[in-house]
């Protein structure tokens, strides 16, 4: 029953999406209001339809309908309800359906919110977003259908979407007995929220893409499209950032290698759209303020979406092997062609408009030293990072395999050689650009506003030297550059507060609150910069100063490492609720003879694979992170541990929270125009409201 409901709603949503594409395109061409409304309704209907389809699969999962082969493959009777829920995105088929559902939600949101304000673009927005949705729903329907069921046909077990002739349902007991259970790697709290966030980040970029394509197709290339696009991009960017951070946290907790970012192709595939998206969020300001860089912005929006589709294709097709990726599957070629088509059509359309001279800039480039040029530099660096990471993850391995018939791996080595100079350049720009002015700025003025942040950064570096007992020049340089960007953000905010205090006589807190409500985007942006700074400091600390050692300890023995003492107390075996066997080492962590914590690093042994779960003790200064890597077979009188000291690693997570906060501040809709502007300068109010 559930399968029928799922199949029918899935099919209907496919039909609705295809209908919406055709009718919106035709309606837009013949200017038929009626047809466009009909297309809109069809597009809106995909959301409830996919909600029902996803709900049907979810209910099947929760109620253990093992005849459904997806349920059978990702859960078993031992799976706790919580992981039954997360199994919805535990494997290719379910996660693709979930992905479609999220995409339809975004499309519906954009159609409802922007319907009146961007009416001219809407037929095309419908057409392009629904074309993308139709493609993905089609994949689910025809290639990766999660509503396949097990049937017995003449004694043979088969899984099919439609019920074969003479089929008998297999016995429920037999199905439950043979069910697979969820991939152990996915049994982590981060998995509840990491994939949905990442998917939201990915599918969210369909809206900016649809708006950009709509602008190109309709020829309405005013700055109109960019207003809606910026906010949607920011929302998608927020989810993508969150997804990346949670992914890092998941890797740190579950993969058991002492780090959060392994430069794995799949991680990079999610990072690439983030890079171009971030570049766009910066350069879009130039277009809003100065009407410049129109072609480039369009290119970035289209490029972000192309990178999203490429990332999806690369991770879901088996093009690259990785712990994060889905198994090799049939959808490789459809996804590949979709990616190629999206890229070629969108860039082709852009070039066509450009060559017709329809994307001329309103302002010329005035001065080499201006905010525009610094933003252009920032974009250049983002593009370079994109190129370097893309090359390392996909370009070099693929070309070396095709041309030289040699498999190569580009690992941490490569990325730590190529990317740091670029990140340094980014942080330097992050420190300077906010101080520069549009149009032109003078070196003297720039230098003057840099004095205080520079002094603060120097003090910070000195503090690191004294407290951290370190003189690693590269790291100190890094700390200086990174902290400068943060101090600029803080100091600019401070100056804003002081200015208000001086001119309006407000108290500091009120002034701060007023700053944030009046110029959300500016100060939200500073908060994001501060978050990126904190992340940067955490990354330098945990990368440059990570210490590790591996030692075999007998019961009762201690290990001194990084100022901690770790004592091996004994070994426990246990069976968890879900049937996995756990081998647990009991450890006491001490510092200066005082007990800090009891840690229990362990091995989870699932029927399919073992997992190494770390024990960690976190402080702001560092994480003591211990893995159980081996033990004596019978009595575990001695066990081997791998210990990491990860300095400042928690700043990565805290910085992430700050970044999210800042993005929320910057994205939150502002409907009201500040009072003094309403009276004083009505003509400028529009520009100010979005400043």
């Amino acid at each position, binding site marked *: 029953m559930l399968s029928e409901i799922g199949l029918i709603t899935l099919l209907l949503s496919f039909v609705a999406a295809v209908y919406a594409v055709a009718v919106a395109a035709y309606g837009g061409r013949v200017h038929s209001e009626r047809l466009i409304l009909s297309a809109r309704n069809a597009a809106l209907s995909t959301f409830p339809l996919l909600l029902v389809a996803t709900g049907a699969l979810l209910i099947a999962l929760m109620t253990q309908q093992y005849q459904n082969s997806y349920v059978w493959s990702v859960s078993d009777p031992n799976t706790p309800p919580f992981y039954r829920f997360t199994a919805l995105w535990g494997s290719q088929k379910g996660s693709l359906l979930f992905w479609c559902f999220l995409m339809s939600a975004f499309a519906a949101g954009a159609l409802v919110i922007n319907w009146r304000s961007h009416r001219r673009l809407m037929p095309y927005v419908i057409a392009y977003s629904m074309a993308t949705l139709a493609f993905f729903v089609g994949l689910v329907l025809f290639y990766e259908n999660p509503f396949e069921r097990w049937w017995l046909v003449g004694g043979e077990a088969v899984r099919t979407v439609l019920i074969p002739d003479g089929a008998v349902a297999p016995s429920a007991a037999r199905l439950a007995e043979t069910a697979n259970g969820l991939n152990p790697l996915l049994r982590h709290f981060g998995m509840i929220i990491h994939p949905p966030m990442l998917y939201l980040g990915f599918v969210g970029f369909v809206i900016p893409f649809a708006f950009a394509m709509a602008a190109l197709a309709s020829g309405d290339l005013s700055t109109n499209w960019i207003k809606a696009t910026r906010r949607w991009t920011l929302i998608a960017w927020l989810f993508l950032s969150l997804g990346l951070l949670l992914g890092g946290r998941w890797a740190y907790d579950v993969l058991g290698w002492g780090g959060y970012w392994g430069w794995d*192709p799949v991680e990079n595939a999610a990072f690439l759209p983030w890079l171009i998206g971030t570049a766009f969020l910066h350069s879009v300001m130039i277009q809003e303020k100065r009407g410049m860089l129109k072609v480039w912005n369009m290119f970035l929006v289209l490029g972000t979406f192309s990178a999203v589709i490429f990332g999806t294709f690369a991770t879901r097709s088996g093009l690259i092997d990785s712990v994060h990726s889905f198994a090799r599957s049939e959808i490789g070629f459809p996804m590949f062609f979709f990616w190629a088509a999206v890229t070629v059509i969108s860039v082709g359309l852009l070039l066509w408009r450009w060559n017709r001279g329809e994307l001329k800039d309103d302002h010329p480039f005035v001065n080499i030293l201006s905010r525009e040029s610094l933003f252009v530099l920032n974009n250049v660096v983002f593009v370079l990072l994109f190129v*370097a990471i893309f090359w390392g993850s996909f370009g070099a391995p693929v070309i070396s395999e095709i041309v*030289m018939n*040699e498999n*190569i*791996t580009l*690992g941490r080595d490569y990325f730590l050689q190529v990317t740091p100079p670029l990140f340094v350049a980014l942080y330097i720009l992050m420190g300077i650009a906010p101080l520069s002015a549009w149009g032109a700025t003078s070196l003297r003025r720039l230098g003057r506003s840099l004095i205080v942040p520079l002094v603060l950064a120097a003090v910070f570096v000195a503090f690191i030297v004294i407290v951290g007992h370190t003189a690693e020049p590269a790291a100190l340089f890094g700390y200086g550059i990174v902290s400068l960007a943060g101090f600029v953000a803080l100091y600019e905010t401070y100056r804003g507060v002081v200015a208000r205090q001086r001119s309006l006589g407000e108290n500091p807190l009120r002034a701060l609150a007023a700053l944030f409500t009046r110029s959300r985007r500016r100060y939200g942006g500073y908060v994001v910069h501060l978050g990126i700074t904190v992340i940067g400091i955490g990354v330098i600390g945990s990368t440059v100063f990570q210490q590790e050692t591996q030692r075999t300890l007998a019961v009762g023995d201690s290990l001194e490492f990084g100022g901690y003492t770790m004592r091996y107390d004994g070994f426990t075996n246990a069976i968890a609720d879900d049937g996995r066997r756990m081998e647990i080492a009991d450890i006491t962590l001490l510092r200066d003879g005082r007990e800090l914590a009891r840690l229990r690093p362990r091995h989870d042994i699932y029927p399919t694979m073992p997992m190494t779960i770390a024990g960690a003790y976190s402080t702001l200064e560092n994480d003591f992170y211990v893995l159980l890597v081996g033990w004596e077979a019978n009595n575990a009188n001695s066990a081997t541990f791998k210990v990491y000291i990860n300095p400042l690693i928690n700043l990565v997570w805290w910085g992430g929270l700050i970044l999210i906060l800042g993005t929320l501040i910057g994205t939150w809709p502002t409907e009201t125009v500040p009072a003094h502007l309403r009276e004083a300068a009505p003509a400028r109010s529009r520009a100010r409201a979005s400043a």
Partner: protein
Amino acid sequence: MKPILIRAALLILILTAAAGLAGAQDTTRRTVTADEVNAIAKQMYCPVCENIPLDVCGTAACAQWRDEIRIQLESGSTPDEIIRDFVARYGDRVVGTPQDPTLRALSLVTPWIAAGLVVALALYLLLRWWRQRPALATAAGATQPADDDYRARLERDLQARR
């Protein structure tokens, strides 16, 4: 550098070399710590673990490889020799950056060439952009100060009560 410093440096060099030689002589089969093994394994990837460095990969194949590293270290091989041996046996995919000169160049030089091209293109566009300036300078001149009203106001406010 002063001669005396050079002489001192040379002396230290010779002493350390001699110490190293002596050390190598009496420990042809020395005991090797897990940390030494991991330091080498960190730079390698085994084809069984996808993109997970050898030092942290938990499969039996990787355990065997680490054991092989330990045995080679015990018999006196240097880390470089061990890595070269593994590359010869299992191909360039076992290291984080290929050892083969062509592949290494392809991997490491290409991004910088690409970077050079991007920068050159950006410079070219910037220059072309800038050249258009005189034609429209009059129009831009009028709007320029107004564009930065926020910053101007901020500075004005900051000056206000000084």
